[in-house]
């Protein structure tokens, strides 16, 4: 049933760019026709504002919108759909948490813990909060196998976490990445949360699932986290829509992030009463079409199931790594853990000291799209002492031929610079 060649027929971009070798899904994924059609459906059939009109098309739009909330809620197994807040992306979700929670919770001398492999979106907001409040930011490092230094794995892949040196009773927030967009590691998020809560039961845990939501099943209750965020555009959905999930009691007590329409109950000259969760955090007209179409992306992923998707991506990543090592041997360095089971479909590498921009540029001559740069993980790149790396990332529409093209392209890169 899982046939990547057939899957491509659902992605119109391949029809318009028949030679496209798209290996940059970690930046943003391609979109299936069902998602594109759903966006159009809203604009063509019921493009009214939500939660306001009394007329039929406004009710239809509101219904579709709220249905998306329920579907997202099921998608990550949250307890109630009011815990789902729509934002414009993982970045906005994290900023909302840092700003609102920061205001309510953080004082001078408090500690916030994060890790060196975070995307800037889960690093800079905490750093800024620290600067504003006088809190202390502690950063968990990585080890030689490019995994959290606080984690040790047994032969059978069982993980033990020791954060007793980092997390203390003063640690108010632990903000961690689920799947690294640069290293491809699947981080032991559940285990670190468990350990953190043992040290400080009141700790608030925030999970950046931007690279997890497209690839692995998420269960917020089983993870035991307090907040979890992701973006629609990396999981086959539209741009401009993201999700913030938070435990209901936190959301209720947190101050709003922005003020305006939809988020209020009553406004008088002197005072405003805010609307209930989740509307309290959804000020102004949201990206309605995008939110409505997000549920089609989820439906598409569910149709194939994460087990099949993950197997496929892992297989491709493994094929790519083995092939690149075979071809370039010592000249290529692959980032991330050696164990394939602990990786996702992201393969970052450094080749022969050739600058990643030159690699990406030459690959582009063969319609191969990869990412070159620091992938918004500068602290990690500093630690690894590479100013930049090249990243190929795989998704359900990729196949082994794409990898073969990539390796052939890289051969051309090496040849160009051998002249």
């Amino acid at each position, binding site marked *: 049933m899982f046939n990547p060649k057939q899957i491509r027929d659902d992605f119109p971009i391949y029809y318009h760019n028949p030679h496209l070798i798209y290996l940059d899904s970690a930046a943003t994924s391609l979109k299936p026709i069902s998602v594109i059609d759903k966006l159009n459906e809203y604009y063509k059939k019921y493009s009214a504002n939500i939660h306001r009109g009394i007329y039929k098309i406004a009710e239809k739009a509101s219904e579709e919108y709220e249905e998306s909330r329920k579907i997202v809620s099921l998608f990550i197994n949250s307890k109630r759909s009011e815990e789902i807040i729509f934002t414009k992306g993982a970045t906005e979700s994290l900023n909302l948490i840092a700003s609102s929670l920061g205001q309510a919770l953080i004082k001078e001398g408090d500690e916030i813990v994060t890790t060196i492999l975070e995307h800037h979106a889960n690093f800079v907001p905490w750093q800024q909060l620290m600067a504003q409040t006088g809190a202390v930011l502690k950063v968990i490092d990585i080890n030689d196998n490019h995994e959290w230094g606080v984690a040790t794995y047994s032969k059978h892949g069982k993980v033990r976490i020791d954060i007793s040196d980092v997390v203390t009773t003063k640690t108010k927030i632990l903000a961690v990445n689920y799947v690294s967009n640069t290293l491809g590691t699947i981080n032991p998020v559940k285990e670190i949360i468990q350990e953190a809560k043992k040290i400080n039961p009141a700790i608030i845990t925030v999970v950046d699932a931007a690279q997890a939501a497209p690839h692995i099943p998420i269960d917020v209750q089983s993870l035991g986290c307090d907040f979890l965020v992701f973006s629609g555009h990396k999981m086959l959905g539209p741009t401009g829509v993201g999700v913030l999930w938070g435990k209901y009691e936190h959301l209720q007590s947190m101050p709003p992030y922005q003020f305006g329409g939809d988020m209020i109950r009553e406004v008088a000259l002197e005072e405003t009463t805010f609307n209930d969760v989740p509307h309290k955090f959804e000020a102004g007209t949201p990206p309605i079409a995008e939110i409505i179409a997000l549920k089609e992306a989820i439906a598409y992923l569910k149709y194939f199931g994460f087990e099949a998707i993950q197997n496929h991506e892992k297989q491709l990543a493994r094929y790519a790594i083995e092939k690149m090592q075979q071809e370039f041997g010592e000249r290529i360095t692959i980032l991330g853990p050696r164990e394939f089971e602990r990786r996702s479909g992201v393969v970052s590498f450094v080749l022969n000291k050739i600058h*990643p921009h030159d690699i990406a540029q030459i690959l582009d*001559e063969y319609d191969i799209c990869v990412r070159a*740069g*620091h992938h918004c993980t500068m602290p990690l790149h500093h630690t690894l002492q590479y100013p930049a790396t090249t990243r190929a990332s795989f998704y359900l529409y990729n196949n082994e031929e794409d990898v073969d093209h990539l390796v052939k392209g890289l051969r051309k890169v090496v040849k160009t610079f051998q*002249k």
Partner: protein
Amino acid sequence: MSIYADIILDHYQNPRNNKKLDTPSRTVDVNNPLCGDKLHMELTEKNGSVEDIGFTGEGCAISIASASLLTQYAKGKDLQKLSSLEADDVVGLLGIELTPNRMKCALLSWEGLLKLVNK
């Protein structure tokens, strides 16, 4: 057409003026944090002209080739005249067509040169 024309590869692999000067009268550091490219540039002057010029640093083929070609061009030229050098002139030196993204790489040494001559 590939932007990795022979002239670019030549100047990338054998960059001219890729050196430190003994007693530079002006020095500057420029970088492009997005790509991690970094250049250190220096010059000595004589009678209002560039007597010698050198650069060190790391970068992609385009930024290194451009630094090589540009320093070659600048040597012996009037400082005043160099200060009116335009981005298009630099692109002309490279002789290739660049996308907006790669333009930043090509113009890093130009940014450095302008800072040097306007010091």
